């Protein structure tokens, strides 16, 4: 290969590196563009190494050279590959024949990292060092590591000022003949297999339990703290620890920490002012960033015992409600959402008003979840917030809120439920009817009876009529019995008789559901009714009453 061809090949490789750097940042590793770009880059390296042993790039601030020829020049500060390497002290980069595609990809991934971000604690040299590539070597200038220019010269000069006095050395020499012989009184015991086994055990354990240890040490600090500033500091350490623990997904350690803090809070001899610091930590343990981390953890598919999360939630205060509501809409897994919903069911009663803010969430499913949470909390104070949601744009939310109103009951819900019985949507009417059935109060019964008694009721769809009677049959009292018998006995008129027969048939159906055998004589009569529908429903009702079906 000629020099010019080599130069071109080196330039091509730099261009391939630049392109790969961009692509790796933009696409996931399984994307065809990513795969193709890396294959192309590797092909360039392979071509080069067909004829050469190594590829050496010298790095200057704005220039990358190959064999003293510039293969990349960029005077700009942004997106400057030369400067990117140079600023971390990288001065030479060598790729050797035998470079594997895996090594190349690893290298490209390293240089594609976003080093500007705070979370990356390593510079490019450290990452290359840690990776310890066999076919990629580098030379880094470590002069930048010294904090003071010429420190070495100064320190050496200083130490050399204490020059040895020839007299002292010769005195030592003379004394050596006079002094008693003392030959190293430290005996070196050779290492044994047992030592190595012990060491292996020690190394196996190394790395485990560091977080627990840190928490233990933090709990030593209250006893070593004296001033308010000490406690302030300790509070921030506990807070950072809480964040770190959740980042690591060590919820059990978090629970242990919160439990110990709670223990301190309940200690009678600890000053209230100090306890307030611990309370702040507990409150912080449920803040938005920590709960967000919990959400990521729950969504990650990592196996986490529900009871561990439940225990964690028990330590939290009402401030954790908004963060939990925030992640509710972001979680992807059903199980994760269930865990969060359970958390809110536990926390919600601590601040109903705050929980109710979730009803304003723009995402319908979040609102429905919050309504579900209110249902589970079963606190009647929730009704006033829920009533505002009845006109929600999404029918799924409306159905859920109507159900909730039914379960919560109370005087405030009737007006709304009555209105909902007139709703244009059949599902809402049905939900509202069922909600009234759930309330099961006299007032609810009256609303349903009035509705059935209303003239317009005959025009209601048959299935809906049937549902009304079915709900009404839940009130198993004399009044309903009499009401149903009355309805069943009503005469049909020529005009609209079919609609009326539907009501009578539904009455027969409801009498069957009611379970009162006193209805059998009436039903026996209507079993021979001219209306086929009434006959059939009467027959079924009698059977139900006789056989308890």
């Amino acid at each position: 290969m000629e020099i010019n061809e080599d130069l071109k090949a080196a330039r091509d490789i730099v261009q391939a590196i630049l392109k790969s750097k961009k692509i790796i940042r933009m696409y996931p590793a399984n994307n065809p563009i990513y795969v193709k770009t890396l294959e192309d880059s590797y092909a360039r390296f392979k071509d080069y190494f067909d004829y050469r042993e190594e590829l050496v790039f010298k790095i200057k601030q704005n220039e990358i050279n190959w064999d003293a020829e510039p293969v990349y020049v960029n005077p700009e500060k942004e997106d400057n590959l030369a400067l990117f390497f140079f600023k971390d002290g990288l001065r030479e980069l060598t790729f050797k024949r035998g470079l594997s595609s895996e090594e190349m990809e690893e290298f490209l991934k390293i240089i594609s990292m976003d080093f500007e971000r705070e979370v990356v604690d390593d510079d490019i040299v450290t990452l290359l060092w840690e990776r310890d590539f066999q076919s990629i070597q580098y030379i880094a200038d470590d002069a930048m590591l010294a904090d003071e220019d010429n420190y070495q010269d100064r320190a050496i000069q200083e130490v050399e000022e204490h020059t040895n006095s020839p007299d002292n050395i010769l005195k030592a020499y003379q004394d050596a003949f006079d002094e008693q012989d003392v030959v190293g009184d430290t005996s070196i015991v050779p290492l044994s297999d047992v030592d190595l086994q012990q060491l292996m055990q020690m190394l196996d354990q190394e790395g485990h339990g560091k977080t627990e240890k840190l928490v233990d040490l933090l709990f030593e600090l209250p006893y070593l703290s004296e001033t308010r500033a000490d406690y302030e500091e300790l509070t921030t350490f506990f807070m950072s620890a809480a964040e770190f623990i959740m980042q690591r997904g060590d919820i059990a350690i978090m629970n242990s920490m919160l439990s110990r803090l709670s223990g301190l809070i309940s200690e009678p001899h600890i000053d209230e002012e100090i306890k307030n610091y611990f309370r702040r930590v507990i409150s912080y343990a449920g803040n938005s960033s920590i709960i967000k981390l919990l959400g990521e953890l729950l969504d990650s598919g990592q196996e986490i015992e529900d009871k561990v999360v439940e225990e964690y939630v028990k330590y939290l205060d009402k401030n954790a409600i908004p963060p939990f509501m925030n992640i509710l809409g972001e979680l992807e897994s059903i199980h994760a959402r269930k865990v969060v919903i359970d958390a809110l069911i536990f926390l919600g009663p601590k601040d109903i008003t705050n929980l109710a803010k979730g009803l304003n969430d723009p995402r319908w499913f979040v609102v429905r979840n919050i309504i579900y949470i209110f249902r589970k909390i079963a606190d009647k104070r929730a009704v006033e917030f829920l009533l505002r949601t009845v006109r929600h744009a999404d029918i799924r939310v409306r159905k859920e809120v109507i159900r909730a109103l039914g379960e919560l009951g109370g005087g405030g819900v009737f007006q709304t439920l009555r209105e909902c019985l007139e709703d244009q949507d059949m599902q809402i009417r049905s939900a509202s009817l069922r909600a009234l059935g759930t309330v099961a109060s006299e007032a609810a019964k009256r609303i349903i009876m009035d509705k059935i008694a209303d003239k317009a009721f005959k025009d209601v769809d048959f299935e809906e009529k049937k549902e009304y009677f079915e709900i009404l049959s839940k009130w198993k009292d004399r009044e309903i019995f009499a009401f149903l018998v009355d309805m069943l006995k009503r005469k049909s008129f020529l005009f609209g008789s079919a609609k009326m027969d539907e009501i009578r048939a539904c009455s027969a159906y409801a009498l069957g559901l009611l379970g009162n055998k006193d209805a059998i004589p009436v039903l026996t009569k209507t079993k021979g009714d001219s209306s086929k529908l009434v006959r059939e429903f009467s027959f079924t009702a009698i059977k139900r009453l006789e056989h308890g079906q």
Partner: protein
Amino acid sequence: MDSKQERELHKNAKELINQISVVLRTSQIHDTNNVALASSISRLVAMINSLVSQENILALELRGEFFYINEYRIRYSLEYLLNFDFMVREFKKRELGNVTFKGQIRSDDIKRFIKAFVDASFSQEPFSTIQEEMTNVRNIDVGVLKKVVEDDSLDVRKMVKKTYFNAVSFTQGVINKIRSGEKVNIKKAKRVVESMVDQILEEEQLLLGMTAIKDYDEYTYHHSVNVSILTIALGQRLGMSRRMLTDLGMVSLFHDIGKMEIPNEVLNKPSNFTDDEWNIIRKHPVWGLKAILKLKRFDDLTIKSAIVAFEHHMNFDLTGYPKARKKINIDLYSRIVSVADQYDAMTSARVYSRTPLSPDKALSIMMERAGTQLDPLVFKFFTNMVGVYPIGTLVMLDTRELGLVCESNQLFPNRPRVMIIVNETGSRIKGTIVDLTEKNEKDQHIRSIRKTLDPNKYSINLAEYLL
């Protein structure tokens, strides 16, 4: 070769060295017809032939304290540590530097090598014996052990010095930055420690030599770096990975960070501390923990560093300070730092009794503390690392020469390399380094240590010789 193949080769190479060691050890007990030895030889032959078929040639070479196979340095692995040490020692004894296997070999070839190896141990000229006996074994070449050429180490020495002083300067900068509330660059700290790890892996003795010089004005910064170097070296002996060594070096570098809170008038007090002053000194582990936790957001390294800063004076038996309310199992890193910290502090001025101890004296005091203040196992590894006569020990030789230990010998701990500073006629000289393992034609050691002296008693500045 891809990285997977390389890993495989490295693993096979380690196993090969181990198997050679097993064969050579067994051959010292049994003759080559013994069933156990024959089975070990068969296994070794299979391993060699498998590697030869992949690599065409298999060159095993001893350079310094490390084995290389086909130019790849084979890292120590804990499980084979004793066998590796045995190999290094036996190769050195016979001045055998390399063994090259070319083409497929047979059990008989190995048996011939074993015989030559065993015979060499009874010979005045061990390598010549091996070479002679191996003349007709075509597939195995042997080479003599190359001596370390002093001149070649000049550039290395320069690099080692640069690494050391960069580290001290950086540490000084860190402390100043923390004091003035500036942000500390952890990326730089890692680079500093990585350089030290590299130097320990390649030039351990030179960097350890730098820690023996104690006459600097800025004790605190030098002490932090010295402890970091000593712990990295010890960590390497313990079989830690490069990554773990970096962590260990980092936590050691910051172990005394709490001392920056101690008022200078206490820290630099020329006389002994009062009880009140001791109470202040004893707070530095707690201050250290706090300083580290304030340095940056929590991560694994922050936590490890904070633990070590808190625990490094607690003692193995928890008799130290600070006193914890809950029983604490002292962390491995803390136990390692504790040993290195005590050693460097005892051999330096301005701490404890303010009179520095000679390295060997410090070791003997520490030996009494092993099992109580110090972890006995960690200390055992430490003594095996620094030797009976650590670097900087002033020694009188039986040749009437006075010298300073400049390099310890892991295999023969009482036979270090010594820099002669006064010759047998009583004249001062500088720079002649002798190896106490050297023997004369009668197979007797040319030089042995007769006694040790305290260099501090004579105000001997080691920098003049070791820098």
